[in-house]
């Protein structure tokens, strides 16, 4: 017997770490040597028994981690853009100022400062147009809903419970549809504050994904537009006097199904 040669190979064999050639030699040996076969069996039993020690993870942990990361992503997004545009502007202009006379330099500096502030204001207002502001509100309201375990103030699968609940709280009545047949389960509704007004939020669920649909009255009609801020998909449209903003971590295609249904 060459047990010394093979005894160190038993564990790598068990762990699937032996190269093919050594593997067959070791298996042959185990098959012919009672002692090594016994030892191998012991290792295998231990491996199997160890599975019992695995500790189940609390299911809520996944949600908590996802929310933390979503917030982090949103924060990075928010901090990233304005800082970089501002620093790019000032560099070449400052170099040119050094060579002119002092008073001229001062005047130029003042003018330049005015120019920069005007440009920043302009670019800011362009960036922060209404849609972006609403998108930001919608994302934070959705994330806030995910963060708190009770994202709904009225929890019901029944459209006839959810719709009247809004009636006393808003000066408009959102359309609340039962979309169970299409795979969107109604979870409930709540009020939130988006774009400077009180809005209705309908919460639907598809499998484990939560979808928030923000609804408020609007004058214009508009076709669905999809954006993807901070890893969420957001689709917005206006129809029959109402603006809809739907947000979720669902795929874009699944979310766009909603635009047909609501």
């Amino acid at each position: 017997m060459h047990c010394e040669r093979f005894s160190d190979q038993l564990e790598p064999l068990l762990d699937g770490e032996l190269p093919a050639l050594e593997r067959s030699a070791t298996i042959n040996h185990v098959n012919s040597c009672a002692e090594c076969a016994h030892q191998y069996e012991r290792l295998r039993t231990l491996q199997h028994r160890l599975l019992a020690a695995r500790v189940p993870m609390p299911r809520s942990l996944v949600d908590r981690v996802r929310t933390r990361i979503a917030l982090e992503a949103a924060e990075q997004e928010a901090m990233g853009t304005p800082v970089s545009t501002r620093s790019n502007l000032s560099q070449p202009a400052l170099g040119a100022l050094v060579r002119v006379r002092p008073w001229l330099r001062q005047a130029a500096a003042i003018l330049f400062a005015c120019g920069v502030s005007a440009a920043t204001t302009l670019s800011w207002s362009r960036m922060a147009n209404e849609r972006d502001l609403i998108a930001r509100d919608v994302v934070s309201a959705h994330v806030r809903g995910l963060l708190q375990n009770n994202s709904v103030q009225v929890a019901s699968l029944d459209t006839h419970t959810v719709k009247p609940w809004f009636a006393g709280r808003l000066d408009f009545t959102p359309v609340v549809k039962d979309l169970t047949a299409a795979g969107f389960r109604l979870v409930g509704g709540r009020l939130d504050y988006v774009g400077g007004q009180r809005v209705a939020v309908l919460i639907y669920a598809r499998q484990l994904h939560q979808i928030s649909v923000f609804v408020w009255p609007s004058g214009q009609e508009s076709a669905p537009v999809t954006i993807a801020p901070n890893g969420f998909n957001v689709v917005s449209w206006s129809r029959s006097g109402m603006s809809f903003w739907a947000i979720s971590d669902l795929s874009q295609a699944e979310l766009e199904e909603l635009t047909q249904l609501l």
Partner: protein
Amino acid sequence: MERHRNFERMALPHMGTAFNLAYWLLRNRSDAEDVVQEAYLRAYRAFDTLTGPDIRPWLFAIVRNTAYRSLTVRKRRANVVSIEEAFAPRDELEIDGQEPASDDQSAEDLLISRSEQALVRSALAKLPQVFREVIVLREWEELSYHGIAEAVGVPMGTVMSRLARARELLGKHLTQMVSMENTNAL
């Protein structure tokens, strides 16, 4: 956006093992949850530094570092402990007590008798931390020796010897405990 989604796709499936790694280093559920949260956030921030197709060694290295850091903090905070407390097995009650409430018990889990579970867990708890972590990574994540070496930051030979020693000790503890139970029964 793309980055956020990629990270979730690659990292979230390994959270069960990340939690076990943290748990078996800290022996406390809520500390392990905190460690997993912090480690995942750190991993997300450092996601750009990940090279190679397998996220696991990199991810578990972060979980492990976070867990060890939390241990140091805990030790510093709790350096006034009675001798009885220091030598009492940690959280033994917590593990057993929480079992019925655990929310994802599979049918397989239910087949394993409670006493077997307690037995194997206390045998694992008796091992030094450096042995426990290789057991978690090898037995439940089926990470290769190479992957474990990367996660733990030691050469592959060390991984193999730790694994061998860990299994030897586990076997010994389990036989001892069984024979003790038998003596008690008599």
